[in-house]
């Protein structure tokens, strides 16, 4: 019997055009969740927690309050997980709730050149979408801006239109300022391993010492990550872009939006470090471009000329008060609080620029001993818990948990010769390495905000910071070893003092105990002194003795 062949009908152009659809952003990310950090069950849950926590922290800091966060994770009977994140921040005005949670790529943070946690305006909304796709449920939002009104609603996203859908809206009176989000997820998992939410929150607490985070886990266990300081970090100033970071398309965008009446004044007012003299310099280098014209008349070719000229001119480095790192004191309090290390070195590098004009700064710390080292995987050695070395990465105080391989911090750590600092096996030692990268613009490797791109200037700064820390720790470890050795020597001498004092007593008739006490006293004194001169003499003596021994053996002189 002849097989029935199934042949696809050849479509005409008209038919094809009917098939042609336009996908919305929402549709795109619905199908590509991994791009936003939703890879694997465990990480997906952590990412949701991360998004809401970031929003909460930003909201609290905007409000100038010490953040108090509550994170609840419950496992439901049907295998789904229920998460609640509550904060005491600014709250969200009713009219903005939809945009905040129901529309992708919308938000207040998108265009500002300010150091912030969230960058793309995907975060919260994508969580809602994720919940939707995996459970079909809506997300519950409760928020209050401090006007005695509390607003509740259930929200979801219309995927085709990328618009919020709100149900069960209610407005009640009451005292609540902040935001609470409740969300149900499926295809997720929770445990306490390195990529889980617990570790994420622990690290968040480390980098944000002014925060207090309470976590309630599925097993009902309550963990509080207490704040280490009541000092709220200063709000970073919004900075004007530096001309060196400008590309032609950036400039074209700006002229389209600018209010300035002349190109020259636009350059002076909307960029940092551009003075009237500099504008003159630029215009001399761009003959044919009229800087007195209104910006909207600028042509692409002309914009290109200006950008090229910018790179030929000498500029003052950008202002750096738009970057607020955690700070040495704060970091010290935080790390001491949570890790109780035996030694702690912190280095805050002065601000630098990358890509020509984007300011950034690196701060690093290395903690040794105490509770330092990965808490998740604790191995024991003779019953003593040995921390294993962990490297903690942060960007704008947000922990980066995934994609370590591609990260600038990982790269920096890899290229350092740890052996020089007595840290050759740091991964087997109770060591915590902490690096925080602060900038107005974090060059993430992907939309999921998982890793910092390995830009040359950035990697270099991280290396300097870590090596400086390592030098300090190396001294500490060296002194530890010295003390150990001293202890060993003391023990060694004490072992023999008994025998020697007995022998001397037998020969001379003097009291053994008296001799022993005297010898012990000398032993205590002597082991405290560095006996460097002994080493050489000892070597000499050993060499001579070995030679003598060998000869005795060779010539058969050894007695039976």
């Amino acid at each position, binding site marked *: 019997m002849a097989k029935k062949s199934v042949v696809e009908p050849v479509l005409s152009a008209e038919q094809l055009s009917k098939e042609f659809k336009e996908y919305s952003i929402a549709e795109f990310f619905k199908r590509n969740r991994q791009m936003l950090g939703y890879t694997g069950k465990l990480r997906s849950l952590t990412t949701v927690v991360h998004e809401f926590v970031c929003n909460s922290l930003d909201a609290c800091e905007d409000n100038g309050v010490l953040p108090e966060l509550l994170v609840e994770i419950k496992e439901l009977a049907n295998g789904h997980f229920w998460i609640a994140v509550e904060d005491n921040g600014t709250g969200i005005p009713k009219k903005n709730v939809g945009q905040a949670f129901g529309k992708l790529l919308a938000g207040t943070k998108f265009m500002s050149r300010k150091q912030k946690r969230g960058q793309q305006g995907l975060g919260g909304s994508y969580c809602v979408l994720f919940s939707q796709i995996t459970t079909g449920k809506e997300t519950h939002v409760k928020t209050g801006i401090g006007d005695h009104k509390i607003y509740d609603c259930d929200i979801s996203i219309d995927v085709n239109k990328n618009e919020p859908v709100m149900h069960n809206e209610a407005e009640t009176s009451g005292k609540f300022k902040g935001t609470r989000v409740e969300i149900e997820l499926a295809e997720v998992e929770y445990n306490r391993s390195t990529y889980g939410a617990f570790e994420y929150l622990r690290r968040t607490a480390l980098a944000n010492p002014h925060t207090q985070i309470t976590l309630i886990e599925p097993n009902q266990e309550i963990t509080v990550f207490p704040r280490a300081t009541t000092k709220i970090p200063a709000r970073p100033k919004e900075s004007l872009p530096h001309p060196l970071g400008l590309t032609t398309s950036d400039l074209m965008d700006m002229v389209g939006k600018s209010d300035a009446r002349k190109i020259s004044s636009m350059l002076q007012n909307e960029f940092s470090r551009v003075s009237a003299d500099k504008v003159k310099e630029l215009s001399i280098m761009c003959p044919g471009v009229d800087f007195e014209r209104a910006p909207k008349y600028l042509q692409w070719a002309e914009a290109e000329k200006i950008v090229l000229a910018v790179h030929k001119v000498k500029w003052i480095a950008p202002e750096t008060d738009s970057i607020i790192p955690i700070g040495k004191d704060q970091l010290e309090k935080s790390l001491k609080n949570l890790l109780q290390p035996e030694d702690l070195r912190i280095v805050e590098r002065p601000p630098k620029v990358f890509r020509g004009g984007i300011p950034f700064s690196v701060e690093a710390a290395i903690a040794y001993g105490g509770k330092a080292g990965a808490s998740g995987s604790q191995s024991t050695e003779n019953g003593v818990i040995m921390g294993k070395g962990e490297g903690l990465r942060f960007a704008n105080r947000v922990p980066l948990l995934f994609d370590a391989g591609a990260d600038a911090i990982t790269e920096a750590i890899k290229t350092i010769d740890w052996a020089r600092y007595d840290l050759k096996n740091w991964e087997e030692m109770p060591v915590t390495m902490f690096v925080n990268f602060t900038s107005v613009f974090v060059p993430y490797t992907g939309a999921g905000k998982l890793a910092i791109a390995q830009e040359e200037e950035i990697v270099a700064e991280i290396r300097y910071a870590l090596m400086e820390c390592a030098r300090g720790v190396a001294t500490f470890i060296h002194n530890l070893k010295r003390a150990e050795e001293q202890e060993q020597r003391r023990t060694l001498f004490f*072992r023999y003092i008994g025998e020697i004092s007995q022998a001397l007593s037998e020969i*001379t008739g003097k009291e053994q105990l008296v001799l022993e006490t005297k010898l012990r006293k000398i032993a205590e004194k002597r082991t405290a002194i560095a006996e460097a001169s002994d080493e050489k003499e000892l070597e000499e003596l050993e060499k*001579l003795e070995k030679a*003598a021994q060998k000869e005795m053996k060779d010539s058969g002189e050894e007695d039976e």
Partner: protein
Amino acid sequence: MAEKAKKYDKQALKESREEIAKKIYDLSMQLLGQIDKEDNPSIAIPVRGSRNVEFDKESKKIVLGEKIAHRYLFNVGHARKFMQTMLVASYVKKDLLDQNLTATLRDLYYAKKRTIAGTKEETIDEQKESDLAIVDFEVALDTFREKLHLRAEPKGRIAGDMIVTDRVREKVDTIDLSHMGSGGWAVPSIVEQIEFKDVGAEYVLVAEKNALFDRLNEDEYWKKNKCMIMSTAGQAARGARRFLQRLNDELKLPVYILTDADPYGWYIYSTMKYGSMALAHESDRLGCPNAHFIGMSISDIEHYDLRSVTIKAKDVDIKRAEEMKEYEWFKQKEWQVEINKFLEKKIKAEIQALSSKSLQYVSKVYLPEKIKSQDFLP
């Protein structure tokens, strides 16, 4: 029998024991002094080994150089050895000298081997450690172990026309070395206490091998030639060497040494005569600088036509010969000639090779000829 004996003062011997005991006591008091001053107690020990050894051409002895090493208590590398040296000191003084007993090195090892209180460590792990500590100690005291009442293994036999007295603690025995039967008298490990009573022998013949002793004994060589015969059974033991020295030094008896014709035999000769580098500190008490080498030499092989009974030299022989050629005390022309001949021909021969001529050739021809013509190597 001619009386050439030199009488030893019993008192002097006793004093020797007391003298040594006092030396140990003084050394210990010195350490106590250092301890009182809170210094790092130390024992000064001349360094042994080829790096601190010289050949004194005048006295013809290998002697210890000037290098002194200080062994400190409070020094991580020295502490254990310091302790072991003190154990030796205490044992020698308290258990041996004060009790007038002698012990072997092994006895000391067992006596002082124990676990240190409160640790898992032993005072002495292997006998090698305590042996070295003994050498350290005897050198530090500028004496030798026999005076410390420490005995090595006895080795070697002697027979001949001589009467001696020997002592075991307080008991004195008279030994007639001409009536020691087929075995000869075993040379004791400590010979300090031996007194020479009646001496009829006129020289001493020392052989490397027991086989030769038996040969000469059976042929009544010592009787006919008025000499002592002694075998060392390989490398001479301390007792034998000291005895030889005393025979030469006190009785003024010439000493002739007979070994195989190979570098090892020649080395045995040189040790008996000059001492050795490893034990250079003892060449004073154990060396016999006036000893002569009768044979066998490579020249002998030629002269006595023994080529057919020679053995091909091994690599180890060649190597040793090359080393010996550089020793200061083999630099004499005659020895250089011999060693070069050996290196050139690469053959060696045992003494027994002389039996190829006839069994009694060595007693009847070889030795008498050599001694009569004084055909020796220096």
